[in-house]
């Protein structure tokens, strides 16, 4: 209540109109912090608050002894290909660095990618033509349902190994850049495990010939 002499005393009739400084913590930090906490909690609840599991598949460190360059592995011309372990169609794991010593093509693809569907018959043909020269071709499927991939592989008659990159970890490491959300992306890797040619988009016959000439043994 406030009251001066000779005046009608007035009660604190509208206390909600008053603002009181109660120190920085209570007056500013606490109210703003409370709202931020509420917003963060609601966002967390909406996001599901889950955490991803590590199943042992994905990008792994390339053993130093297997890196013929003095540079960090990177899926670019002249750099050692980043190593990975991925599950194959038959369930067995496959480690990329285990294939060192063989010319290699790594193709990132998905069944929903029209350009991938268009180039796969040519890749199969290329693989079958060059298998006798030691060429290994692997198709890395991106984050797709296994049953759909199996059906596609059977229909299209894919004979080279198909691997599953279930969480897109390897695709992210390899920084795929094809026209359909990163695919198709194809990497030509020589016997030392060094990337010699990168093709983002459908591989043309000319590009395939250039890539093969860089990775196949002479005369192959």
């Amino acid at each position, binding site marked *: *209540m406030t*009251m001066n002499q000779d005046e*009608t*005393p007035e*009660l*604190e*009739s509208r*206390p*909600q*109109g*008053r*603002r*009181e*400084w*109660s120190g*920085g913590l*209570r*007056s*500013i*930090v*606490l*109210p*703003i912090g*409370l*709202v931020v906490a*509420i*917003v963060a909690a*609601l*966002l967390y609840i*909406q*996001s*599901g608050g889950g955490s991803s599991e590590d199943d042992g598949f994905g990008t792994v460190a390339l053993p130093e002894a297997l890196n013929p360059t003095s540079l960090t592995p990177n899926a670019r011309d002249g750099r050692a290909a980043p190593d990975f372990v991925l599950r194959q169609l038959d369930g067995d794991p496959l480690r990329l660095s285990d294939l060192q010593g063989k010319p290699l093509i790594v193709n990132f693809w*998905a*069944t*929903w990618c*029209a350009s991938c*569907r*268009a180039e796969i*018959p040519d890749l*199969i043909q290329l693989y079958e033509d060059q298998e006798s020269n030691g060429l290994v071709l692997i198709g890395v499927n*991106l*984050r*797709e*349902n*296994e049953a*759909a991939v199996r059906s*596609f592989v059977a*229909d*299209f*008659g894919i004979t080279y190994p198909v691997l*599953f990159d*279930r*969480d*897109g970890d390897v*695709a*992210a490491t390899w920084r*795929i850049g094809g026209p359909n*959300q*990163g*695919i198709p992306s194809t990497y030509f890797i020589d016997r030392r495990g060094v990337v010699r040619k990168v093709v983002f988009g459908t591989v043309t016959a000319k590009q395939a010939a250039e890539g093969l000439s860089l990775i196949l043994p002479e005369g192959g």
Partner: protein
Amino acid sequence: MAEASLGGRPSRLRWPDIDPLRLLWRGLVSVRFALGLIGFLALASFAGVVIPQLPVEMRGNPAAEAAWLEFQRGRFGFLTNPMDSLGFFQVFRSLWFISALALLAASVCVCTANRLPPIWRNVFRPQTRVPDEYLSHGEATTALPATDSQALARELARRHYRVSTSVEGDTTYLFADRYPWAQFATFVSHLALILFLAGGFVTVITSREQQLFIAEGEPALPVFAVDDPDHMQVYVEDAVGRFDKTGFPLDFRTSLVVYRNGEEVARGVSTVSDPLRFGGYTFHQSAYFPDGAQLKVRNLATGRVVYDEVLALTSSAATPRVVVRDASGAVVLDDAIVPTDFIAGAGGTIVTLPGSGREFWIGARPGGDAASWQLIVFETGSTQGTREVIGPGQTLDLGGLALSFSGMKEIPSTVVKGLPGIDGDGVAEMSQGPSGQVLTVGPVAGQALSLSPGDAVVLGDYEYTFTGRREFAGITVRRDPGSMFIWLATGLFLLGLALTFYTPRRRLWGKIASGQAAFRGLGGRQLAVEREIREVAAKASAAE
């Protein structure tokens, strides 16, 4: 130290005054500051409505953004680049707009929180006793003949007042309080306002939307890029569109399966108003297209599939409908002639007339008048054969056979690229045959292939199979975490309003002594307070 440097005079700026937190607090609790912010946001929103904004689907695509900006240059000239730099083409996503919103939210929040202590005191530790001067001065005081304080208390309690009395000599002091907690309604309303602002902020920052157009049986399509943490794929099992006899749409619904990292995570039916939900995302049916056709091509040499696509027949082709009767009047052909060859402005194809084995090229071309068409008929392989042009409704004698041109009909069609066996572009058209849908594709090795669902047709090195008609569903995938805030805020806002308007809080002080009673109250208009005091006193007197 500060005072000494000022020659011993008291400093006007004391340390608490320049406490940055206190300065910030002063700004945040200032009504003028809040009004200024609201005015600024209103102006900015007006600018965001008047100035064209970069379409959502172009965001993050530098080439599309540059092209759109170039288009705006014709309108805004040399101002385009400065406006772009200042975020005028993306007002609601600009840093300054979001900062102003956040500042307003902070202002409301700090302001509200700082009202809590006085209101808390007022609700839980109210001033139950007022000085006698408060009750003896002013027009606000209601003077009455003395009434029994117990009877008054009973009547007030009946009216939901919480009553306390104290006695000093022959004077009784009375305090009555009704619905004091209704003062907290202001917090509920302000919390609603904060949540409205937070909801808008969260929507601008975190909402996502993607449009997919998927056919039945097509591989599951990705919603976001493969390197996106929320990468999901949507598979359409069945898309259904129901129409009434006039073609008016009655219902669209789609059976969907959602995959994440190859695992099925959701399955269900999505409609326009009842979406499938998963992980904070909604999958709404937003479009429907009936004319898709799945075509599969197998290489005969390898046995492998080399082409497997669902064609969206989004164009239309005008096709002539012809009826051929034999000498007895029996119908030997009643069909739309699907064009696969285009000769001198006419689209047509080679037709073998059943029973006769005779081959004709039948096609149509627009007449002089755009609305009229002409049917061109000539017998292939014979220079002496029929070569005629007739109009709609006319009949042609083909020597034992009568061919009538019934008119034109539009059928779904599209250009096909990369189909094995076709050099360059081909055409695919879907028509209704006597036993179901027929997909006509061509030219394959110079011919038109008529494919019935499930039948494999071999031509050259390939086997062509029309797997069947496929319907497309337009699916809008959306996530808006802000909507949760908005719903909550709406509920709180309504609760705040209800508390304010339907819980009439009132507080009364009274003094009863020497045959007189004086009352004064707060809560509502003065006249209403006085009327209630008199009613209470009258009822209490009557009850005595």
